[in-house]
């Protein structure tokens, strides 16, 4: 009937472990016999009599404690700030920029502390687009290992003495270098220019400013220099592209301004719109972007040029480069040529390579298609990623050679960690006379500097931005600085240049300076209004740049085995490695948490003798990979879709390798709490740092030749992939092609579930599911509200932003790697990733069922299609969980919600056992106090606790919890409507997941409102309900995934069914 969907190779092959675990919702239960026969039991320290004493004492203590209510203190403000109402949230507009992602955001504060971040859909060119890192950044504010005092030589020091020392060092030095990440702040640029003028005068060369990003895009800028004569990166508009060809650019996850591109991309993926884009991806590691592509070619990193050359050739050009392709890539490339020929200038070709030559070929192809002026805008260049690789390379060489500048000022960079030769740089750094780091943590670089000057967190400071030409934006503080001795980086620069004096904790130096910059830029504009909107439109000068062919630079060389270094959705470049939410975010593709690994195609793994299946007891093989003379040992993860003879390793891991204080959650923890320590007594980092494998030629390149060792033992992996299986009910995912959707009726691509019944004549007839009811219906139809969710599988890209937003909104605890490995992660919302093979689903119904095996799906398993499916509580109107609760702790509301009363729950777990969607989570421990989670759960930290949402209960041990459909938000939406004596406006109510979704894939609303979007979505032809045949009548709808592909097999499977078309 439809494709076969599988979550992992274990499921596809039905390994014995998989079969065993899929029948157990709560794995690893010991029987009484097993427990008593445990030999270690005799060694336990608690004797029976002691146990009874404890028992008696606790009962007595609990009884006594319950009798007397403690006196609660309440402290009102002395002077209440005007815009704070205790108990009510205050929202601020702001802007997020961490050197790698940029977005216009809204920050929710309660009693003046930020607790939630979402995208700003009304202002800013990112139009509400965010990624998991941005939503999770609110937790970074409350990290207790953030520096609160400036240090000199490792000891706390006063600002006055540090300022004096640095100012005089800068003045008397022969050479001063300022190394920063890309500065997009006009005010910071002005301050740096002032510094340059006062140190260099007109012509001097004492001071130089070098920009250096953890991940460089210099290749793109250099290619544009050769083709256009300007080192710029143009603006891309994916929403206008009918054909999108991406050569290893993960533009939905990490590439360039991905927060802007996700929203644009989603607009083109609507099957009901005038046209739907065709997306062809060529890549090495299966990425978020690749998983959404209509066609996907697997290529080695060195084949990127060949792909582009093949396309140029196919369109009648000549690249002058070899264009031989492997079969998988050829298949996709032919589709690309066909599509590009059709869409011509309404196409877009992007490349993620940092090789100048590859980018030049991309430019050439775009020029052939005449996309400059339609999907690519040269007059609105991107200011992000201005890394100057050549200058950086020279500085590093000088520093390593001990010939570095007298004074090295570093701001928001961590070269010791992110440089390929970071170790050598670290040695050279110690030889520099005066090294200064403006950094929030005493990280790998800052720990070695003579002075560390802690800056503000982004949520504590004023700043301005110009991410693109004409896109001026502001950020404002949402909390008074938490650290006693922190100061704005801008203020520090001004002070050291003698342009300002320190203003203390509530200093207005930076604010005044930014206001002055604003006044210079917009003489007539209102600053307060700009802060209110966080953005300020600006006129753009049309570009006069013209494309000219240039000599193609040197291209990457091929090797037997090649490595590709990529960024994960959660960890990115590693700056947020201390964020436990992001560490526990299952990777969108591999679903692995808390770890770094080597991805390899299972076909290759078998050939090399690695194990390709794993579960909570059976780990994966470790192996050693050598690239550029640097080697790391990591587990090998089987990733279908990985190009053959290649491996992928994520950047951003292995932070704090020398025990630097970069945050509590950045390190490995032991099974019962506490850190794993290495031989030197330092905390063990998570994963390994692979920046050392970055090749540094004309630009930094994130791919190269690799040698791979053999299996070296077994390493446990904590992945959510094998958990919560769906018991063989493959009807949960539905998919079709655009062609079928447009040319056939609903019975082909979205047939209703029917059951047999007897009609009045005693004949068997098929009747829709809605006619069958086991119980009396809840009175939720028509009356009052009925809240529902609709999820568009065509728009969902699987990025995981919703999951982090849910965690942030609903105080979901972090449990740590060991618990995730046991299948006890607590996320209320999970994003299931299904691999799809074009094979019939139900083996039992096949004619050749005796001889059939899914081994034939092996080719498909090499490069499978992917479907992402967010799954949360379905709030079934006939909820199976409600009927089995012995204490009525989970009940149904007349608004269609499946309610969970924590204080009633006694923890029988019957409900979770009975849930067909497996969305209930049990509190196995007291996460806010149990020692096992001390290092990972922010709720156990005095500072980290401040991120908790005061409107949502923090659950305790022994109770069940699950998605509440953000009932706190439903209640507050209703209340504001009632207070204002008006009806609820459709779209007013948003859950955390729908609020943060960058592609607007999640729609929530009142289903009883006939004009609502949710109503129309639930009734259109694409709407279906997961496991509808179970008859639980959920309040969640999905929209069938529509791919813009040609698929004969699927077309044969999905046939229209009409009267007389007999069921077989």
């Amino acid at each position, binding site marked *: 009937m439809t494709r076969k969907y599988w979550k992992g190779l274990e499921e596809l092959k039905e390994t014995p472990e998989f079969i065993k675990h899929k029948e157990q919702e709560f794995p690893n239960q010991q029987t009484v016999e097993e427990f008593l026969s445990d030999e270690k039991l005799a060694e336990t320290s608690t004797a029976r009599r002691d146990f009874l004493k404890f028992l008696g004492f606790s009962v007595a203590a609990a009884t006594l404690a319950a009798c007397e209510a403690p006196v609660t203190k309440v402290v009102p403000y002395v002077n209440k700030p005007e815009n704070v109402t205790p*108990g009510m949230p205050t929202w601020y507009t702001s802007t997020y920029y961490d050197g790698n992602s940029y977005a216009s955001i809204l920050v929710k504060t309660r009693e003046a502390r930020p607790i939630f971040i979402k995208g700003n859909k009304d202002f800013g060119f990112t139009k509400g687009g965010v990624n998991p890192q941005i939503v999770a950044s609110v937790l970074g504010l409350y990290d207790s290992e953030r520096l609160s005092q400036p240090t000199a030589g490792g000891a706390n020091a006063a600002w006055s003495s540090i300022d004096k020392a640095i100012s005089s060092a800068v003045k008397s030095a022969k050479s001063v270098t300022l190394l920063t990440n890309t500065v997009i702040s006009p005010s910071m640029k002005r301050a740096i220019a002032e510094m340059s003028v006062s140190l260099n005068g007109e012509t001097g060369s004492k001071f130089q400013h070098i920009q250096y990003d953890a991940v460089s895009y210099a290749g793109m800028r250099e290619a544009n220099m050769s083709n256009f004569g300007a080192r710029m990166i143009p603006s891309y508009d994916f929403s206008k592209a009918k054909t999108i060809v991406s050569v290893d650019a993960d533009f939905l996850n990490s590439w360039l301004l991905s927060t802007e591109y996700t929203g644009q991309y989603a607009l083109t993926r609507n099957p009901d719109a005038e046209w739907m884009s065709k997306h062809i991806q060529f890549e090495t590691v299966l990425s978020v972007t690749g998983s959404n592509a209509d066609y996907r070619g697997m290529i080695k990193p060195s084949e990127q040029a060949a792909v582009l050359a093949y396309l140029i050739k196919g369109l009648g050009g000549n690249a002058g480069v070899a264009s031989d392709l492997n079969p998988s890539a050829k298949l996709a490339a032919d589709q690309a040529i066909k599509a590009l020929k059709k869409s011509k200038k309404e196409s877009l070709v992007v490349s993620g390579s940092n090789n100048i030559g590859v980018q030049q070929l991309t430019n050439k192809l775009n020029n052939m298609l005449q996309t400059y002026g339609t999907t690519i805008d040269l007059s609105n260049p991107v200011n992000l990623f201005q890394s100057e690789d050549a200058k950086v390379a020279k500085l590093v060489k000088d520093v390593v050679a001990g010939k570095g500048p007298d004074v090295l000022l570093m701001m928001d960079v961590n070269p010791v960690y992110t440089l390929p030769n970071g170790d050598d740089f670290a040695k050279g750094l110690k030889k520099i006379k005066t090294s200064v780091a403006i950094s929030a943590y005493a990280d790998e670089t800052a720990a070695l500097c003579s002075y560390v000057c802690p800056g503000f967190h982004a949520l504590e400071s004023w700043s301005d931005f110009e991410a693109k030409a004409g896109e001026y934006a502001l950020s404002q503080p949402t909390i008074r600085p938490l650290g006693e001795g922190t100061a704005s980086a801008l203020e520090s620069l001004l002070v050291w240049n003698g342009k300002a004096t320190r203003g203390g904790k509530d200093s207005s130096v930076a604010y005044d300076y930014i206001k002055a910059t604003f006044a210079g830029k917009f003489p007539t504009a209102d600053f307060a209004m700009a802060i209110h909107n966080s953005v300020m439109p600006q006129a753009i000068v049309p570009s006069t740049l013209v494309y000219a062919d240039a000599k193609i630079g040197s291209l990457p060389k091929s090797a037997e085995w090649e490595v590709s270094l990529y960024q994960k959705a959660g960890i990115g470049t590693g700056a947020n490695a201390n964020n436990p939410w992001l560490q526990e975010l299952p990777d969108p593709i591999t679903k692995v948490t808390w770890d770094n690994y080597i991805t390899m195609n299972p076909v290759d793994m078998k050939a090399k003798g690695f194990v390709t299946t794993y579960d909570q007891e059976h780990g994966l093989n470790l192996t050693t990979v050598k690239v550029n003379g640097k080697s790391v040992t990591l587990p090998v993860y089987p990733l279908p879709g990985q190009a053959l003879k290649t491996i992928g390793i994520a950047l951003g891991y292995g932070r704090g390798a020398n025990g630097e204080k970069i945050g509590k959650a950045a390190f490995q923890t032991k099974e019962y709490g506490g850190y794993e320590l290495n031989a030197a007594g330092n905390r063990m980092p998570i994963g390994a740092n692979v920046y050392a494998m970055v090749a540094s030629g004309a630009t930094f390149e994130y791919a190269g030749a690799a040698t791979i060792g053999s299996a070296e033992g077994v390493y446990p992996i904590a992945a959510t992939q094998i958990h919560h299986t769906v018991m063989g009910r493959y009807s949960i995912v539905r998919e079709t092609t655009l062609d079928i959707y447009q040319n056939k009726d609903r019975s082909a691509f979205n047939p209703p579930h029917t059951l047999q019944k007897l009609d009045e004549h005693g004949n068997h007839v098929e009747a829709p599911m809605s006619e069958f009811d086991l119980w009396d219906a809840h009175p939720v139809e028509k009356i009052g509200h009925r809240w529902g969710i609709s999820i568009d599988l065509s728009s969902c890209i699987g990025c995981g932003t919703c999951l982090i937003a849910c965690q942030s909104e609903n105080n979901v605890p972090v449990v740590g790697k060991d618990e995730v490995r046991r299948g006890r992660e607590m996320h209320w919302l999970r994003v299931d990733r299904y691999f799809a093979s074009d094979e019939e689903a139900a083996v039992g119904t096949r004619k050749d069922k005796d001889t059939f095996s899914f081994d034939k799906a092996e080719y498909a398993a090499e490069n499978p299609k992917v479907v992402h499916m967010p799954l949360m509580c379905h709030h079934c109107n006939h909820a199976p969980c409600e009927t089995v609760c012995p204490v009525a702790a989970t009940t149904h509301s007349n608004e269609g919600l499946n309610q969970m009363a924590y204080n009633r729950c006694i923890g029988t777990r019957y409900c979770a056992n009975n849930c067909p969607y497996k969305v209930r989570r049990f509190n196995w421990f007291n996460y806010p106090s149990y020692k096992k989670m001390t290092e990972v759960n922010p709720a156990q930290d005095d500072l980290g606790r401040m991120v908790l949402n005061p409107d949502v209960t923090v659950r305790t041990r022994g109770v069940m919890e699950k998605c509440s459909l953000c009932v706190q938000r439903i209640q507050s939406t209703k209340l504001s409507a009632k207070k204002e004596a008006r009806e609820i406006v459709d779209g007013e109510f948003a859950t955390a997941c729908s609020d943060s979704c960058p592609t607007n894939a999640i729609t929530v609303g009142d289903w009883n409102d006939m004009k609502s979007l949710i109503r129309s979505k639930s009734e259109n032809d694409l709407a279906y309900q997961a496991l509808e045949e179970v008859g639980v009548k959920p309040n969640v709808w999905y929209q069938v995934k529509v791919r813009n592909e040609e698929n004969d097999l699927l077309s044969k499977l999905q046939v229209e069914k009409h009267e007389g078309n007999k069921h077989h």
Partner: protein
Amino acid sequence: MEISRIQLLNRLKSVAFVTLTLGFVGLTNFSKAQGEALFKSKCATCHQTHKNSTGPKLFQVRDKWAAGKAKEGSIIKWVNNWQNAVAADPYAAEVSKWSPTAMSAFPDLKPEEIISIFDWVDAQPDPAMATTTGGPAEPNSPLTPEEEEGSVGWIWIVMGVIFIVVILAVGGVRRQLKIATSDNPEHQEKLTYGEELRTIAWKYRLWVGLGSLVTVIAVIVVLFQGLYRINVMEDYQPSQPIAFPHDRHAGVNGIDCKYCHNSVTKSKSAGIPTVNVCMNCHKQINGVDKPFEGEIQKIYAAAGWDVSSGAGKYTGKTKPIVWNKVHVLPDHVYFNHSQHVVVGGVDCKQCHGDMKVMNEAVKVQPVSELNKIEGNVQLTKPTLTMGWCIECHGKKDVKIGDGKNAYYDEIHRRLKKDPALYKKYYQDGKVTVSELGGWECAKCHY
């Protein structure tokens, strides 16, 4: 238990106060009573009897005007509209130079009413001179921790033990006497105390059996009642750092509850007044007599208001007031004040009692007290328990479909689509909160 003792003391105190006040009122004439009421409602915001504040002190002000050679009746004209008086009388013009502000006009006051105010003011003793006796009742001083920890409970236990010992001793003596006076020597050796008891118990076994049954049942009932009282906050009355008289603010001065608890209409919490709200009035009103002055000084200390130098100024050294929370909701429950006050139109009195007459530190009013208040929904379960909440939700009606709230009108329209359910809801002539989902778990628990 200790708290309820204090309750008793406080209640005694208030009874004494009422008696005293009644006696005082009986002695004064009607005119002065009217004068007092008028003074408090019209003048007290700016004027004090014996002290200059926003306006000058009013004690013997008529004599002052007479001494200043003001025209006859000019002062009455001044009160009605001071600008008219200024035009007619040079002395009034002199008075009008008083800073900081000009006086409001009171054209509604009749001359005899104005005279009654002055009469009442002149009859007031100067608190600076007067001794503490005879003045208005003392504001309740904050309860000290010693009082709270009173050993009253232990006294009963000790007395009980003594009582039992006495009974046993008497019984023993009686038995000894009986043995001593008995003729039978066998008795003397055989019957111990226990044996004797057993004999008696056997003899009256029916009664003893019945008695034991009753005792056991009684103990179980008491035990369960006790268990049901666990964490019931009724009558809870913690001490407070400032002896704040609600009756003076809400009652005598008629300040609306929402003026100080101003987030009650906006937020889930009603809000403990912030010190800047107190200072709106107390910048001027610094107490008419010693005990009040002391309490108001505590506000000044919190606000950092320095009165030592004339007009007073803020020093910037603030010290937040740490109050003891009275109405503490049980854990895991969400309650929203604005929902009840703005949408439900519930009066504060329904849950907090009549603050206009509450002279003592705030306490959780027992439901029996709340039921006495006119207009309150009559409830039976203890205050601040879940039973109490849902009882009210089951009784209170929601006006839907009356055209006053578009939200409820829409709900009404949707309800009408199901006539059977509509009929069921309106069987008792009203739609209650519970029928609209007010009894559902996730309305308060999430």
